[in-house]
């Protein structure tokens, strides 16, 4: 990031009021995306000529990511392939939302049917175990409230989970499509995700990002089901990225030190209780 001229501050920092407050309330905290969002928003609001930008969750981000789905559809159409299943990993929902948008559009218009699956980590299961309610998008409660499937903005996911799916909420578009049953959701455990990543890397020659590997895991599961039933389904999944930012996680996996932390109902109840009353 610094090579491209950016400044990088570890969060929670002492640069912002939110950061100082969170450090005081939870000393030694490893932070969360929600908390870093609050810091970034505060930094934007306190400097002239600055705005905050977010890499997921928002409707505008899903819109830009629709280029993924539009290209996918064009490529499939070019060879006359009809997808049966479309699978994507879901953190804040931007790649999934972008990938499925044109296909979900066909379903909404009654033109076609697909089996769309969102895959999330068992350690941060917003869709499969969250509630559909208005919540803050960030820990510091400065961003607008969105109605979404959420674990509560005070939920801090287990630090042992790798990568970018550790977000308490979910895009309000993906949430509404899930509520309308246009898509379904599954949660998977981290170790099984890395096993799927290893299988994939060894035959396809790409080291997948841990996030993307959630989609790989379910794609492999579904392909193995087809082996039993003999069905020739067309399974399409989003390989959102490569794993070179997450070498520490791969190291842990290969050293046998990776664990699967699944929050208890009690953990979730605590953070869901703190939802704002709207």
């Amino acid at each position: 990031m610094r090579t491209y001229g950016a400044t990088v501050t570890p969060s929670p920092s002492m640069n912002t009021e939110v950061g100082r407050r969170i450090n005081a309330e939870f000393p030694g905290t490893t932070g969360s995306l929600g908390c870093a969002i609050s810091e970034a928003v505060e930094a934007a609001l306190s400097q002239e000529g600055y705005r905050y930008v977010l890499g997921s969750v928002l409707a505008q981000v899903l819109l830009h990511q629709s280029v993924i789905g539009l290209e996918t559809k064009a490529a499939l159409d070019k060879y006359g392939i009809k997808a049966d299943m479309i699978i994507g990993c879901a953190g804040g929902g931007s790649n999934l939302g972008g990938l499925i948008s044109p296909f979900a559009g066909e379903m909404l218009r009654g033109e076609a049917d697909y089996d769309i699956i969102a895959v999330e980590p068992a350690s941060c299961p917003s869709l499969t175990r969250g509630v559909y309610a208005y919540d803050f998008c960030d820990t510091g409660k400065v961003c607008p409230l969105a109605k979404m499937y959420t674990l509560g903005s005070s939920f801090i996911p287990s630090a042992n989970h790798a990568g970018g799916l550790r977000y308490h909420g979910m895009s309000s578009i993906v949430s509404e499509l899930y509520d309308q049953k246009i898509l379904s959701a599954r949660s998977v455990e981290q170790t099984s995700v890395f096993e799927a990543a290893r299988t994939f890397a060894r035959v396809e020659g790409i080291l997948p990002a841990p996030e993307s590997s959630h989609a790989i895991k379910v794609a492999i599961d579904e392909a193995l089901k087809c082996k039993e039933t003999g069905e020739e389904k067309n399974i399409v999944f989003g390989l959102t990225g490569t794993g070179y930012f997450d070498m520490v996680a791969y190291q842990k996996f290969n050293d046998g030190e990776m664990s699967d932390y699944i929050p208890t109902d009690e953990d979730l109840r605590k953070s869901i209780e703190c939802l704002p009353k709207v």
Partner: protein
Amino acid sequence: MSEIPYKIYLEENEMPDKWYNVRADMKKKPAPILNPGTLKPVTLEELSGIFCEELAKQELDDTTAYFDIPEDIRNFYKMYRPSPLVRAYCLEKKLDTPAHIYYKFEGNNTSGSHKLNSAIAQAYYAKKQGLKGVTTETGAGQWGTALSMACSYFDLDCQVYMV
């Protein structure tokens, strides 16, 4: 039907020139985002205090189905798009499955992920509005890297808070 190659590549001129807004086709729309102070739906004016104006408009628009992708962004996309749709023949063989597996590979750019697709759009609108810079958060670093690259392309300052 012709044989399906390992990688389906579109031509540059087959790249979409519009983004698609799925909300336009939803009969029941996602609930509006609310101002945390008043608990009323956020207005364009309020949202423009946090986001750049064009992006605030996109955020609130749930009826326009297609948005033109500005030419500067399309040209930037051409650095790494269209991305391949790969037929995972090798994985199918390994799993010994009759299923046909395809994946859309978004990792072939400096950020190693799909994040650049939105980073460049957000940087473009910030530049167009004459801003000095932007702030953001990042987890593993894909988004932060994507935004840093997009900002350097448009000569904007970029401040990243990293978990």
